[in-house]
């Protein structure tokens, strides 16, 4: 069985009385936050705003944005919800890289220079850091992101071995934040490419032993705008806040299309 039983008290490997203070006193530091603003109700052109803020050791970029919104300029607009990297609301370009604002600690950035925050690229900007996500979800919906199983439904669960379950584990982690798709230079060019996120979610079903519609998804992704447009630039893998090996998933889908055609 996979879970160890904790019958008698297991010894800790460390001496707690010694090991002291864990997250100790938090230090303060100053940062400059520079945000690319856009609000068509005010002006047609985008502009940059800069703020100097005093922040704490465990603060994230999201905290800095909140500080501005709550204390200085209420018009600064961005999406956020969970604040710990699981809802996928706040993907944005921070110092030129796509990340989640709530998972990017300020102390991990170079605070001697302004921290530059922009909306993710390739999707229409609506206001400040908010982009229109519909084209992104449209691609997602097109790969049929749901299980299709035509065999008769068993009364109990469908059986799946731990190995079969492991096969697609990586791609089940996706939170649809769009950090990958909006970091892909191929997507930037015209927005027609299905994009890594859609492929990741197709992968999740193609390699699920319980699913019957893998072929259909492979056919969809064999499209002119499908997997073959990926140029293995790995931007998506680097951007993924969930640590999904996105490019690997795309390659596996390519290989699956290839072997199916042979």
């Amino acid at each position, binding site marked *: 069985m996979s879970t160890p039983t904790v019958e008698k008290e297991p010894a800790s490997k460390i001496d707690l009385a010694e090991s002291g203070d864990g997250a100790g006193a938090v230090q303060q530091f100053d940062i400059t936050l520079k945000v690319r603003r856009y609000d068509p109700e005010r002006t047609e052109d985008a502009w940059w705003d800069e703020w100097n803020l005093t922040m704490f050791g465990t603060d994230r970029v999201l905290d800095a944005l909140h500080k501005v919104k709550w204390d200085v300029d209420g018009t600064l607009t961005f999406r956020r919800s969970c604040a710990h990297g699981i809802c996928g609301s706040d993907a944005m370009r921070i110092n030129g890289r796509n990340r989640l604002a709530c998972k990017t600690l300020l102390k991990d950035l170079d605070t001697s220079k302004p921290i530059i925050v922009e909306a993710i690229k390739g999707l229409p900007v609506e206001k400040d850091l908010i982009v229109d996500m519909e084209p992104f979800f449209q691609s997602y919906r097109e790969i049929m992101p749901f299980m299709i199983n035509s065999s008769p439904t068993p009364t109990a669960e469908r059986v799946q071995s731990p190995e079969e379950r492991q096969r697609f584990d990586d791609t089940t982690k996706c939170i649809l934040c769009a950090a990958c798709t909006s970091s892909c*230079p191929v997507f930037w060019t015209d927005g027609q490419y299905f994009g890594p996120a859609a492929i990741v979610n197709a992968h999740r079903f193609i390699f699920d032993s319980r699913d019957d519609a893998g072929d259909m998804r492979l056919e969809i992704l064999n499209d002119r705008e499908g997997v073959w447009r990926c*140029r*293995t*630039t*790995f*931007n998506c*893998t680097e951007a993924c806040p969930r640590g999904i*090996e996105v*490019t*690997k998933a795309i*390659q596996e889908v*390519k*290989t699956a299309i290839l072997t199916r055609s042979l």
Partner: protein
Amino acid sequence: MWSWVGHRITGVGIFFFLLVHVLDTSLVRVSPEAYDAVIGAYKHPIMIMGEIGLVGAIVFHAFNGLRIILVDFWKQGTRYHRQMLWAVMVLWFVTMVAFSIRHLMIFFEGWEGF
């Protein structure tokens, strides 16, 4: 991503060179004089540098192309793409040093001046 930008730029560069190169080689069919005259231009010192650049582009495109092929077909490829890029850079550098030395040596040996 920058490796891809490099791959793209070198690809385009080589493509245009290839167009020109096929055209100039076709001159062998026109007349030997014409061909030799044009080929003579390749032996100019400025062109020598150009040739090193061209070979540099081809070699990068070739090695990086092989890396891409490995990423595509080798199971562990996606995991080691970064290391492979380093390997490409190192190989590229070594090849280019060797090539440049040999090319320049040959060039100076046979050069009759302007």
